[in-house]
C-alpha cells in the first residue's frame, strides 16, 4: 500500500552547535582544572536492567549517585548543579557525560539561572524514573494524530492494563508547568537547547492546550501577538478556511 503521507518526524533536531560548543568549553575548563581521576575503569558494564543490546557502556544509576554532580553555568554567571542521574534526561548532557566532558562547568548560554533552576527541578523529580531506552522505544517517530475520542463500552480491552502514570508524576507536572507565559517559553527554549524531550513535550503540549479551540483574536490576546494582517487580508484568510471559523 503506497503511503502518500510524508513520515517526517516532528521533533526539532537537537542543536549540533550547542553540543559542540558545550563540549569545547567543557574540555577547555577541564584542562585547566586539576586532573580528574581517571574514570575509564570506573565506566562499568551496561545496565543489567536494560533489555537492549546497546554495547555502549552507560554509567549505572547507583554509580552515578557517587559521582559528583554536573555544574551548569547560566547566562548570568550563576552556577546551578544537577545530579548525574537527573542530567541523563538531557540528551546533550548525557552525551557529554559519556564522552567524559562533563567534569568542568558546562555553559548554558541564553538560559537565565531562574529558568535553569526550574529545569533542574524537573529533571531531579523525573530523573529516578527515567529510562533512556524505554523513552526511545516509546517515542514513536510517527505520533498518531491526538484524537480525543473515548472508546465504546463494548470494545475489546487489553488483557493487561498498563498504568500510564505509575509514579504519579502527572499532577506534579501540572503544578510545575503552571507558569506565566514568559517563564513557560523560557523553559521551553531551555529544554530545547538542552534537548530534554520530556520537558519539551510537557511545555509544547501546555501551549497547544492554551491555543486549542480559541479564535484568532483570543490567541492574540493570550500571547500578546500583534496582528500584522490588513483587514482585507484577514477577511480573505477567513473566507478561504471558512469551515474552521464556523462557530
Amino acid at each position, binding site marked *: 500500500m503506497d503511503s502518500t503521507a510524508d513520515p517526517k518526524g516532528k521533533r*526539532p533536531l537537537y542543536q549540533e552547535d550547542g553540543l559542540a560548543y558545550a563540549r569545547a568549553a567543557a574540555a577547555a575548563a577541564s584542562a585547566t582544572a586539576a586532573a580528574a581521576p581517571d574514570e575509564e575503569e570506573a565506566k562499568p558494564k551496561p545496565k543489567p536492567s536494560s533489555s537492549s543490546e546497546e554495547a555502549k557502556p552507560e554509567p549505572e544509576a547507583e554509580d552515578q549517585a557517587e559521582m559528583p554532580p554536573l555544574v551548569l553555568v547560566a547566562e548570568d554567571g550563576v552556577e546551578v548543579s544537577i545530579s548525574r542521574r537527573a542530567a541523563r534526561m538531557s540528551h546533550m548532557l548525557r552525551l557529554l557525560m559519556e564522552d567524559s566532558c562533563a567534569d568542568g562547568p558546562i555553559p548554558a548560554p541564553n538560559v537565565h539561572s531562574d529558568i535553569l533552576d526550574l529545569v533542574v527541578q524537573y529533571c531531579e523529580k523525573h530523573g529516578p524514573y527515567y529510562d533512556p531506552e524505554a523513552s526511545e522505544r516509546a517515542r514513536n517517530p510517527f505520533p498518531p494524530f491526538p484524537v480525543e475520542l473515548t*472508546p*465504546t463500552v463494548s*470494545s475489546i480491552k487489553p488483557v493487561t492494563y498498563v498504568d500510564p502514570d505509575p509514579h504519579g508524576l502527572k499532577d506534579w507536572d501540572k503544578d510545575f508547568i503552571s507558569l506565566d*507565559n514568559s517563564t513557560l517559553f523560557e523553559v521551553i527554549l531551555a529544554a530545547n537547547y538542552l534537548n530534554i524531550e520530556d520537558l519539551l513535550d510537557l511545555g*509544547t503540549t501546555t501551549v497547544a492546550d492554551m*491555543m486549542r479551540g480559541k479564535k484568532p483574536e483570543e490567541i492574540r490576546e493570550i500571547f500578546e501577538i500583534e496582528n500584522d494582517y490588513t483587514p482585507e487580508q484577514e477577511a480573505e*484568510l477567513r473566507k478561504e478556511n471558512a469551515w*474552521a471559523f464556523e462557530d
Partner: protein
Amino acid sequence: MEIERLPEELLQVVISLTSPQDACRTAAVSRAFRAAADSDVVWSCFLPRDLPRFGRKQLPRSPLSSKKGLFERLAAQPALLPGKLVSMQLDRVTGAKCYTMSARALRVPSWGDTRRSSRWIHIEIDFITGGKRFSEAAQFLGVRRLDISGKIRSKMLSENTAYAAYMVFKLGERLHRLDFPFQEASVSVGGIQQSTRQVCLQACLNEEEDVVAGAPPYHILPSIVGPSTVTPGEDVVLPRRRADGWMEVELGQFYNEECDDREVSISLTEITSNVDKSGLIVRGVELRASTTCE
C-alpha cells in the same frame, strides 16, 4: 510577545498538537503563525500515517504542492479507491479516514430468479464523479431473507479511533414489512461482536425542532397495506433523514485499536420472519469517526 521567541520549528510542534481546525484558525493570528500553521510539518501530523491507494485520476497528476493541500483535497470530497466500489474521505475535525461502501461493494441477498424481486436501479449522485458503481443502488422488492453485509480491513481505518457504521437507504415503492419484525444490526471486528442492536427501517426520527415544539419523537411510514401500528421500544434504533434526502440508520459502533489487521464486518439482517420484505433501496454503508459512545 514571548511566543515570538520560539523558533519556527517549535511553533510548528505546538500547532501540530492542536487540530486541523485550530491550525486554520491560528494561520489568521499573524504572518509568522501562518508560516508555521501552513507548513508541511504540521499537516503531515494531521494526515493519516497510511493513506490507501486511490484510483487513477483521483488525485491531481502533479504532486499536490503541500500537505495542507492534500488534506484539503481529501477532506473536501471523497476519493475513490481502485475498483471504484469504495470511497474515502477525511473527517475534517479529526483527520480520521471515513469510508463509503457503495451498494455494489456490499453482499446482498441472492435475488433468486424472479426479476420482480430485486434489481439494481440508477440513482442520482452528484457528490462523486466518474463513479458508475456509486450511481447504483440495490432495490429490494419481495425478499424473504434480508441479509446485507459489508466488510473492510481494520488497517484501512484510523488507529485509536471510534467509528460508527451507517446504512444509507430510502424507502420506495411497495413498502411492506420493514416495520416489524425489527431488523438486527451488528458490527464485529476479527470475528468478535462489538455491537448489536435492533433497528426499525420503516420508522423515521422527527426533526429536533419539531419534537421540541411538541411533535412525537418519531413517525412510521405507512406501508402498502396501510398505516403501521408498531411501537418500537427505547432500545430500537431509528433512522434519521439526511440533508441529501436519503435516510441513514446507525448499525453499530466499534473502536479501532492500534493492533494488527482484522476484518470489520457490518451487517443488517432480518431472517426470522417468513414474510417478504419490500420497498428497501440501499445506497451503501458509511463508516464515520464517531465522537460519542453508547
